[in-house]
């Protein structure tokens, strides 16, 4: 942590991630801040598929790919091996929302419970984008996906709210849990640095926009992510040692923007705008969250 590697790139260009994808921004910054003494474990997902098309790799540091469900288990093994040999390195997991919130939750829960010294970074694009935009448990209420279709029978899209994964992991008494957003850059950077400075299981839930799944122009990636924070839809907070009561909100928008501003930039929410009641329900949900937790 003493040396500064910000001007070095440990994530090489030439990967196959879509133009405008936010995941490489998150990955490149986590690696810049962790430095070369890092081992990455990558769950199956867009990031793994698109950065390691044989015979190429975009990773300039040791990298291990495992299945959808066991990245946290594999990282536990890597960390245990380091401990056994007395070596020191940052072990970082990158997983998408499918590989973390749905399929890999059991392995992640076990990793945190066993207290492995691993930083788990969830880049959350809110659906199974790699396989064709199927809904995941991290898909927000009201979003269109190919498995939460919108029509006469269902004018809403996904009918269930997003799983509060950061709070679930915090409930395991993880050392450090935070939600972050690369568009709120200083907050994001500070949280990555803070997470790297702790020992023990750490979890970062980072929102990551997907141009194809969220249906927006590639150039609007950061603008949309910023709106996710400024509308209050994706609150940024941190929880240390599982102390959910003392959760600290790290980013209070100066003035909350109406949720429409976030919705209208994305094709996946287009149907909601035709129905003001649905938009109002979402706004009420956001207001209720901030009323309940906003004092933190």
């Amino acid at each position: 942590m003493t040396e500064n590697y910000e001007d070095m790139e440990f994530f090489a260009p030439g990967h196959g991630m879509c133009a405008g994808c936010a995941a490489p921004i998150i990955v490149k910054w986590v690696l810049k801040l962790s430095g070369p003494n890092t081992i990455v474990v990558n769950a199956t997902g867009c990031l793994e598929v698109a950065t390691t098309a044989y015979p190429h790799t975009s990773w300039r540091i040791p990298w291990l790919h495992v299945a959808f469900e066991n990245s946290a288990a594999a990282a536990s093994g890597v960390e245990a091996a380091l401990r056994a040999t007395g070596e020191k390195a940052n072990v970082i997991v990158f997983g998408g929302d499918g590989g973390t919130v749905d399929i890999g939750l059991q392995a992640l829960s076990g990793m945190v419970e066993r207290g492995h010294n691993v930083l788990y970074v969830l880049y959350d694009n809110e659906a199974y984008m790699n396989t064709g935009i199927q809904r995941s448990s991290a898909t927000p209420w009201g979003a269109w996906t190919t498995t939460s279709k919108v029509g006469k029978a269902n004018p809403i899209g996904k009918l269930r709210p997003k799983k509060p994964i950061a709070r679930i992991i915090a409930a395991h008494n993880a050392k450090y849990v935070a939600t972050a957003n690369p568009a709120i850059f200083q907050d994001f950077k500070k949280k990555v640095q803070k997470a790297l400075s702790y020992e023990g299981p750490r979890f970062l839930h980072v929102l990551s926009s997907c141009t194809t799944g969220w249906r927006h122009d590639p150039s609007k990636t950061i603008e949309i992510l910023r709106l996710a924070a400024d509308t209050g839809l994706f609150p940024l907070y941190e929880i240390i040692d599982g102390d959910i009561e003392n959760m600290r909100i790290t980013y209070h928008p100066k003035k909350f923007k109406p949720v429409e501003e976030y919705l209208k930039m994305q094709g996946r929410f287009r149907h909601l705008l035709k129905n003001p009641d649905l938009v109002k329900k979402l706004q009420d949900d956001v207001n209720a969250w901030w009323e309940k937790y906003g004092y933190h």
Partner: protein
Amino acid sequence: MEIVYTRGGVIPYPGNSTENKTGSWRVFKPVINYEKCIRCMICWQFCPEPAILKIKDEDVKKNTPAPKEPIKRLPVPEIDYDYCKGCGICYNECPVNAIDFVKEER
């Protein structure tokens, strides 16, 4: 029966995806107007490739035009068109509108 041993799935060196020149994906092309660029590096910060380089060479810093003389002390952002996919995040995020987004001509 003779057994033929072949090499397995070998990736010759880390980070060799640089062999893929993803610049060919580009439809629109960002072009930095150095007369306006304040070298804040926000484009470099948000480039997902990463295809924006931070040039620290003293000659480049001095010889690249800048809106004000003191700005010439700062590193210069330079777009690597070999890899730039033309997403336009840099163009959208530039605080001083110093990046033009023009149709790619090949």
